[in-house]
């Protein structure tokens, strides 16, 4: 029992709700939201320390022991992801202070961002599969509102698409939980895992697992990603950055959790499908990323590529590849947040996101140029930045298991990622400037703090990989050996 586990979702929820009462006091809202997120970050660091010292931390809510109550389980993977999610949210919040206008600040943008963080952290921490659904809904509901906030025509159209897709997939999620409950008679994930391991994973259970894979795939943007590029390019940059960094990653986390803990027994069916879906995701995402000439679309397709790449590591499911997948997941949350923040700033300064109409920003924005250059290299996986180590470990795991074709596809898509981000870099920063006198002085200063913060993390995660690796290794232990997780919940 450890009450600290509940705080990463309680603090954002409590503050998010209390912010609703200060609708017009933007300054106060900013202070409360910023300090609350910093508190969440500190607590999640303490949580990482406790998990690394004394193993998985469990909190049985209301004192009801598992499997009767709802446990919150902080294993190392959850603790790391909570920390990174809170850090990225802080960066997006600080970016939003300068970026979003009064019309959004006055209509609860900050409280919704806090509640989104609560949903994300809750999804990472919960140990109950129905509770996972509830936190998904908390996260999705605030994302619907954040997406439609401001109410431009494009935003409304994309929200309609996004909401329809997500309601259908959430309904299927509830249905899959119902099937799983009727098969195993429990909702606690550790208990489900234990029972399926005892009675064997038969055809019916595998079918349910495929239904769950489809649901999480829809949320993560795995193969069924047709909704993603539109809805991630519609909202303003801070909100798009938050979505790109967090929302798909929660789907990936759910796939990792369910297919390592609950359904690892028939990899020849489930993991093969996962493998092919991830390969197709990478290929289609890469085609999209090189085809478009608009910054927002290119970045959105880059989100899709990395989803495919992480799940390639998950589908291989060896210790090495899972290490790589977790590492790359952490890297990708930070790097996607960073590149969306920087891309949004380019769009703000240039006034358009069409690459052919932007030119020569380096003359007036040298710092932005360098930040974008570093984050582009990190995305493509150039050493010594953080993307390289994750890619290397995933590929090493894949090649050791004989998946040469998939490894080739991932290397090729990495090259295309580099091409697509360099296309943005060359077109928008090099050449003669097209900015007029007034635009040269236009804002874009708010990007510096979050930009530096996340760039430092990307560089630090790459250079300090030696120090980070023990934590990643500990995160992978319960994934390779689910019994550790099960024992921790029932102890």
């Amino acid at each position: 029992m450890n009450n600290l586990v509940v705080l990463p979702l309680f603090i954002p929820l409590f503050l998010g709700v209390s912010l609703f009462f200060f609708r017009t006091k933007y300054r106060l809202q900013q202070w409360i939201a910023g300090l609350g997120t910093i508190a969440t970050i500190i607590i999640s660091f303490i949580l990482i320390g406790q998990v690394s010292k004394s193993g998985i931390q469990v909190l049985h809510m209301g004192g009801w022991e598992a499997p009767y109550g709802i446990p919150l389980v902080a294993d190392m993977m959850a603790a790391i992801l909570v920390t990174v999610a809170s850090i990225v949210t802080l960066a997006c919040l600080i970016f939003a202070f300068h970026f979003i206008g009064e019309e959004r600040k006055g209509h609860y943008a900050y409280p919704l961002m806090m509640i989104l963080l609560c949903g994300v952290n809750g999804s990472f921490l919960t140990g109950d599969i129905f509770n996972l659904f509830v936190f998904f809904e908390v996260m999705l509901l605030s994302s619907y509102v954040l997406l439609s906030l401001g109410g431009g025509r494009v935003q409304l159209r994309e929200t309609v698409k996004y909401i329809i897709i997500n309601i259908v997939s959430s309904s299927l999620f509830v249905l899959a939980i119902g099937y799983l409950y009727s098969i195993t008679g429990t909702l606690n994930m550790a208990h489900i895992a234990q029972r399926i391991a005892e009675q064997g994973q038969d055809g019916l259970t595998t079918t349910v697992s495929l239904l769950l894979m489809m649901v999480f795939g829809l949320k993560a943007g795995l193969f069924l990603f047709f909704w993603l590029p539109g809805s991630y390019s519609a909202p303003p940059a801070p909100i798009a950055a938050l979505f790109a960094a967090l929302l798909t990653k929660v789907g990936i986390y759910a796939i990792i959790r369910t297919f390592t803990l609950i359904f690892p027994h028939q990899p020849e069916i489930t993991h093969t499908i996962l493998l092919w879906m991830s390969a197709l995701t990478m290929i289609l995402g890469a085609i999209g990323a090189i085809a478009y000439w608009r910054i927002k679309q290119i970045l959105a397709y880059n989100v899709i590529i990395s989803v495919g790449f992480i799940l390639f590591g998950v589908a291989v499911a060896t210790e090495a590849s899972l290490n790589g997948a977790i590492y790359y997941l952490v890297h990708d949350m930070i790097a996607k947040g960073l590149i969306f923040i920087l891309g949004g700033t380019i769009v703000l300064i240039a006034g358009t996101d069409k690459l052919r109409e932007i030119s020569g920003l380096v003359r007036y924005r040298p710092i932005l140029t360098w930040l974008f250059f570093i984050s582009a290299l990190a995305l493509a996986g150039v050493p010594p930045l953080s993307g390289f180590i994750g890619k290397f470990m995933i590929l090493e795991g894949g090649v050791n298991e004989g998946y040469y074709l998939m490894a080739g596809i991932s290397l090729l898509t990495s090259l295309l990622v580099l091409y697509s981000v360099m296309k943005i870099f060359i077109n928008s920063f090099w050449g003669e400037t097209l900015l007029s006198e007034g635009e040269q002085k236009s804002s874009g200063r708010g990007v510096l703090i979050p930009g530096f913060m996340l760039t430092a993390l990307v560089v630090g995660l790459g250079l300090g990989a030696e120090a980070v690796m023990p934590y990643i290794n500990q995160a992978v232990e319960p994934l390779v050996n689910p019994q550790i997780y099960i024992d921790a919940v029932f102890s």
Partner: protein
Amino acid sequence: MEIVMTIIAGTLFTSGVYLILSKTLLRIILGLSLFTHGVHIMLMSINGLKKGAAPLLDEQAASYTDPVPQALILTSIVISFSLTAFSLVLAYRTYREHGTDNIEKLRGQDHE
């Protein structure tokens, strides 16, 4: 009884999917809510309808009905209720902005 309920759930799924695939926003939202109702009924029937007494300890009955699926359905109903309310508002606003409720005719910029 479970079979009848399953058929009802199937009918709701079918009509829900049919409505979701139509082009009018209002029909799509109705389809979504039929679809979620189908899910709820399915959830109830796969876990068994009323099999015994109410799950209270002083009933002293031989068997009790499992209350968990009902609890799940209740939670899910609340969520789908709020989603339906939100999507209706969203549909109305979209209709006001675009001047149409035909999903094919929603356009952002002129050249799209």
